């Protein structure tokens, strides 16, 4: 992208990771390059069930414009998605589907739980509502609110970006991670 366009549209280029630089070469850690690439091109899978999904629509639309963060490419197929955004009430009837979607996603995968319902059941402490999606899948970032404002949802996504930027390449193979997965009965 030419410098001209960048200046005019006030675009920011992703920050270069630390490294050794010299004429004609640049050396840095693989982890950091991968982290940078991942963080700026997350493909979210919106799993919008109810009210919070409408707030997500507002976040996607022109006013809040999630595309600013490299996210205009929603991936409706779990196989290509990196980020599962669960927005809205998950009833017990829906639980198995959610879990199946999560299992279909390839590593590395992150989960963002948007709204009180997804995080804890919210105001619906009833026989039919799952009391928080962390009972069936591991969650990385919780966004509270009923519904959270679009700014909050964006904040949550920025947190996910931070996580993915700083994640070490080996984390997903570590015994801790395996243990976490096993505690949910996955794999």
């Amino acid at each position, binding site marked *: 992208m030419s410098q001209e366009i960048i200046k005019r549209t006030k675009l920011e280029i992703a920050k270069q990771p630390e490294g050794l630089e010299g004429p004609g070469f640049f050396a840095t850690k693989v982890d950091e390059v991968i982290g940078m690439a991942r963080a700026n091109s997350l493909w979210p899978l919106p799993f919008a069930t109810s009210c919070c999904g409408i707030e997500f629509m507002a976040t996607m639309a022109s006013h809040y414009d999630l595309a600013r963060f490299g996210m205009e490419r929603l991936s409706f197929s779990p196989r290509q998605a990196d980020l599962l955004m669960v927005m809205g009430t998950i009833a017990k009837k829906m639980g198995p589907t959610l879990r199946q979607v999560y299992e279909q996603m390839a590593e590395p995968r992150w989960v963002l739980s948007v709204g009180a319902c997804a995080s804890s059941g919210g105001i619906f402490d009833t*026989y039919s*509502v799952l009391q928080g999606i962390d009972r069936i899948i591991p969650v990385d970032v919780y966004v509270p609110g009923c519904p959270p404002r679009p700014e909050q949802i964006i904040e949550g996504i920025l947190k996910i970006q931070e996580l993915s930027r700083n994640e070490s390449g080996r984390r997903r193979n570590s015994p801790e991670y395996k243990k976490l997965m096993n505690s949910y009965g996955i794999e």
Partner: protein
Amino acid sequence: MSQEILDKVNAQVSAKFPGAVLSAELLYNFPVFTVDHNDAHEIVSFLKNDPELNFHFLTDLTGMQTADEKHLGVIYHLHNLPKNMRVRVKTFFSMDKPEIPTVTDLWPGANWMERETFDFYGVKFKGHPNLKRILNVDEMDIFPLRKEYPLEDQTRDDKSDKMFGR
């Protein structure tokens, strides 16, 4: 206006089905009839098909449980759109034998409302084409809206009364 509707409907239904109307009253300006459950289907069908009364629009169908927890009820809200008349027809039956004929033959739209009522209260609508649970999972074995079943999710363990000094 409502009083006239009440009187008119009451007169016609009582003439056609003697003894079936258990009570007819005006509640908050709304004509309400409680009818015998054996005649409920015929009465509703009469209200719908009578050219003069013409309550052709089924606004709502729902169930309820009486306060003594021994009876279930089904409540129909009928509407005559051209003349803008509404009536409510209620019918109660014992919980030991919660059966009542379906009205899906009169209104195809009653289908899901009856399934919902079955799902919540366990009212068996005789002759319903597909009486299954609709909102809850198929494996559920309780009828959650009956008063004896709890509302709360039973799997939570973070709500101990100790926190509240009880």
